[in-house]
């Protein structure tokens, strides 16, 4: 029963991943990340993604504050925040977030405030979508690991 559950979890995970790839939410950099996970750092992917969400939330907040400030238009700061968000997003393979950052940056360079606002909204939307989906993925992963552990414990117990 547990074995069957593990198989189903794995199938679900793969399906979710392939959907995310197909939608362009993730790209092969995420596979690189998974590839980097090994015995020395068993939670590498989720650790990195947690850091990423923590950091990018700050960036998004900064971006929103900068844009909402009607008096000043600090395109340099906007550019720096966007660049960093772009760097970290691309590093974890968050392709769509990264692409919107690029669009956002282009809007910033053209001093197009309305376009920036729209880009920010889309960015936040994409960010939430990514966060939810990855959360889903990690939950499944966790269940699978737990299931494995239980099964393993069961095997040990039988012996």
């Amino acid at each position: 029963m547990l074995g069957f559950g593990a198989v189903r979890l794995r199938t679900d995970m793969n399906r979710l991943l392939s959907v995310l790839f197909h939608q362009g939410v993730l790209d092969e950099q995420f596979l690189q990340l998974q590839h980097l996970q090994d015995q020395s750092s068993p939670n590498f992917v989720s650790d990195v993604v947690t850091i990423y969400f923590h950091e990018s939330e700050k960036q998004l907040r900064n971006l929103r504050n900068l844009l909402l400030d009607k008096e000043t238009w600090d395109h340099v700061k906007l550019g720096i925040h966007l660049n960093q968000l772009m760097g970290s997003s691309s590093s974890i393979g968050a392709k769509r977030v990264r692409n919107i950052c690029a669009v956002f940056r282009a809007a910033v360079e053209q001093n197009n405030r309305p376009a920036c606002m729209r880009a920010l909204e889309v960015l936040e939307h994409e960010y939430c979508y990514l966060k939810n989906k990855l959360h889903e993925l990690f939950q499944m992963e966790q269940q699978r690991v737990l299931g494995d552990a239980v099964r393993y414990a069961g095997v040990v117990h039988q012996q």
Partner: protein
Amino acid sequence: MTTASSFVSGSGSGSLSSKPATGVSDQFPVGLRVLVVDDDVTCLKILEQMLRRCSYHVTTCSQATAALNILRERKGGFDVVLSDVHMPDMDGFKLLELVGLEMDLPVIMMSADGRTNLVLRGIRHGACDYLIKPIREEQLKNIWQHVIRKKWNENKEHENSGSMEHKRGGGGGDDNHDSEYGSSVNEGGENGLLTCHKKRRSIKEEDDCELESDDPSASKKPRVVWSVELHQQFVSAVNQLGIDKAVPKRILELMNVPGLTRENVASHLQKFRLYLKRLSGVGGQQGGGQNSFCGPIEQNKKLGLYGRFEIQALAASGQIPPETLAALHAELFGRPTGNVNLPLVDHQPILQSSNYGQPLPSKQISQPVVEDVHSWHSNNMIGNYGGLGGQNGNLIGVMPSQQVQKQAITVQPSRLVVPNNQSSSVSFQGGNSGVLVNSGEKQISFGECVQVLDQGPLRNLGFVGKGNSIPSRFAVYEDESLANNLNQWDNFGKKVKQEPNIEFMSVFSE
């Protein structure tokens, strides 16, 4: 050359084996000590893991200032530095500059922003590589090559500077160093000695640079375009000082050009030296026999008839050895100015066979076509000296005789003035002094450029080849930078690439 290679391999392995468990042998890149600086913790974490997977020894740091402190505390504790470009406490380029000056370590820049101007800026500040995020493990596997390359290049420089010093007979300020280290000079210690020289000198020079470039606007200075005139000034300054003793500060003083910084001069001097070195390398392969004296004349006769590129080709293929040219010129131009008045009969055969742009009969000169060819040949001759002259590794030393220098000089005005009716007199004017010698030198170092100058439409291309104005040339493309940038992302939607601003919603239409 054999000594050079033995130097390289010897000290390369020596310096590397000083690290724990690393010889150049089987283990080599293992344990490479890498310092990663990035304010983006996500990237830092990923990079750390990737580098660890490459069996490198990784130190991470999220602040540029802290990284600088680590580097200062543990001098010699790292082999290579990976640094982000945008960091809040210190610009990555500034860090790059400081690391380059103080530690002389290879620095690899990284950024999500891969726009050409930014990458160029990185290169200009001395980055040995520029990685665009996301960085992949495969890219990091290879970074040890920069460590090796740097070491080898340094050794080559030492080898060269060492031979130069020997040639000069240890004259000048280097005597101090020589006596200081004199006791330790032996077969094995020689390389180390040279290393010390190099290090000391470069640090001293570059420290001076740092003082000036400390102001925050330094990185935003407009690019200096080294026009022919400016370069000429530069070369005359170098000549006045002597190529071995020319330091950016003195050159700058001598040039006395407003707006020019020592940084500019220093970088140009570096390029200039590299150029000379390259020439000397080419020249070494070109030692065509002296007995080919008649050959070039034949070729040159053709040249007058067939085309512009022949001399260049000859020079490139080494068919005109410098000795031959020198001899020719000694014969043709080494005579007093009065020889214009000699009967034409005496000179005509020689002149026609060589076409070196000297006192042609006025009849010919008055025809524009002839004049054009004539003036071009003059330039080209000088260019050829540049190509061939480097044989001894030191251009100034190469000019085989006073007469040759004079020749280079005399030709110069005829090119610049290009008057149909005066050229025979003009071309003999410039026998006198330093300035003219320098102008000859200018021609030598930028021989290709000068040739290009005659071909108006190609003018810009000539400079691209020199590497001096590349940034400004590329600046044209900055507007396309988004497209350039996005090109790297294979799967990025086409619409976004082209009209990012208007149609960005289309990304989500899927």
